[in-house]
């Protein structure tokens, strides 16, 4: 922790090398960045990126980090938005060997570390799973004893980000449960649910923690509508208001660029 009397340290812009790019789903790619001066981060945080055109025009956006703090590279997971200005550029142009200007980490609220403990309830809608994935990967590295349930809602099976990793992780870790639900098509395999997150599903999830056990911390990330529904259901189920942290996509889905975390608007 810095000395309160010292001038606060600035988050400087830096040119991060793009180490590699990986396709996660048809509309989602991961960009693995190596920022030259990186002081680490807490799972759940995000970074700002800044793109500069030849005439000096600049565009900035925020993207959540999907990798664990322990990972070698910072993984930004970016969903391509049809009318976006920045996300299509990432998808269509950015390649290994490029440099991208970024600064971070940013955000001191929607974060989890082993000291925060559990039981932990994570609810993600669509690409809202990204900061939750950072928490799950961090938990794998340092906190496997923390009882954790991830509820993850996607429109289609093909849109489930980190699908294989999550299924394998939940299969190998009795302390981690994955509740996957698909809203716009039939569930493709046993164990995957169909339909939106509702009270019935939430009741079942809360029962999975065991009799008289409540999640100590809940993180919800997704569209504003998803966050509203999920948080309302949890409050109705008696989960304390102050134990729920939320992160909503900025902007309406047609315009928002990835996950724009959080201050109040």
């Amino acid at each position: 922790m810095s000395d309160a009397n010292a001038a606060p340290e600035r988050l400087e812009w830096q040119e991060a090398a793009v180490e590699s790019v990986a396709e996660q789903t048809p509309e989602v790619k991961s960009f693995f960045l190596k920022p030259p001066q990186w002081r680490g981060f807490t799972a759940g945080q995000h970074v700002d990126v800044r793109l500069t055109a030849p005439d000096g025009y600049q565009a900035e956006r925020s993207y959540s980090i999907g990798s664990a703090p322990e990972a070698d590279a910072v993984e930004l997971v970016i969903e391509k938005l049809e009318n976006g200005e920045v996300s299509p550029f990432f998808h269509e142009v950015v390649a290994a060997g490029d440099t991208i200007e970024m600064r971070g980490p940013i955000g001191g609220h929607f974060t989890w570390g082993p000291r925060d403990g559990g039981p932990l309830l994570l609810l993600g809608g669509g690409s809202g799973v990204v900061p939750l994935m950072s928490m799950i990967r961090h938990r794998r590295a340092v906190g496997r004893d923390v009882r954790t349930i991830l509820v993850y809602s996607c429109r289609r099976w093909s849109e489930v980000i980190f699908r294989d990793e999550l299924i394998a992780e939940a299969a190998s870790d009795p302390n981690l449960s994955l509740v996957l639900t698909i809203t716009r098509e039939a569930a493709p395999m046993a164990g995957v649910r169909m339909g939106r997150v509702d009270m019935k599903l939430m009741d079942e999830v809360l029962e999975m923690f065991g009799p008289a056990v409540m999640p100590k911390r809940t993180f919800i990330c997704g569209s504003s509508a998803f966050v509203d529904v999920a948080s309302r259901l949890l409050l109705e189920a008696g989960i304390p208001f102050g134990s729920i942290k939320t992160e909503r996509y900025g902007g309406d889905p047609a315009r928002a660029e990835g996950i724009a975390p959080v201050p109040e608007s």
Partner: protein
Amino acid sequence: MATRGFFGRRQSPEIEARLPPGQYLEKGFPVLSAGPTPIVKHEDWHFDVKVGPRVIKTWNWDAFNQLPRSKVHKDIHCVTKWTKFDTNWEGVLVEEILKAAGLDAPPTPYVLAHSFDGYSTNVPFKDLADGKGMVALTYEGYPITSDHGGPARLLVPHLYFWKSAKWVNGLQFTNVDEAGFWELRGYHIYGDPWKEQRFTGDP
């Protein structure tokens, strides 16, 4: 240094002149918040003016609605990069609140705004004076919905919008500029969008 292959989507000069650095134009009105949306009923609503720990005036909803109203038309700028033009609000200017609380002058130079959800944000009083800050009660002619901070939210549109505290329930005068919720979590103590003061330490 230019980013390889990026040309961007420039706006017209008129629009660019109204966009602070790093912001883009948003037509919708995104909702962002740190936690669930608190539903505050009018019968439970109250608004306090405090000087340090001392409450000097409290209004209930009906009494607060009797205070003189003003209208403002402003562009708003969220630190998450979106800017929305031409928003219309009606509410009670902070200077009217002071007057109604019996204060001729601000008792201290700084204010911490508090909200029903435990949120707080700090604003120097000079940024709330002279019509610059209000407690807004309507947006575009309608009561402010709970997801946008209703029944009442602070409105300080010349600063990043996290300073415009949703679900506001009081203004506390403080002797020093005490960091609020986001200001303690990496966001700038003042938050001028035109200087791009997003994060702690930004000049």
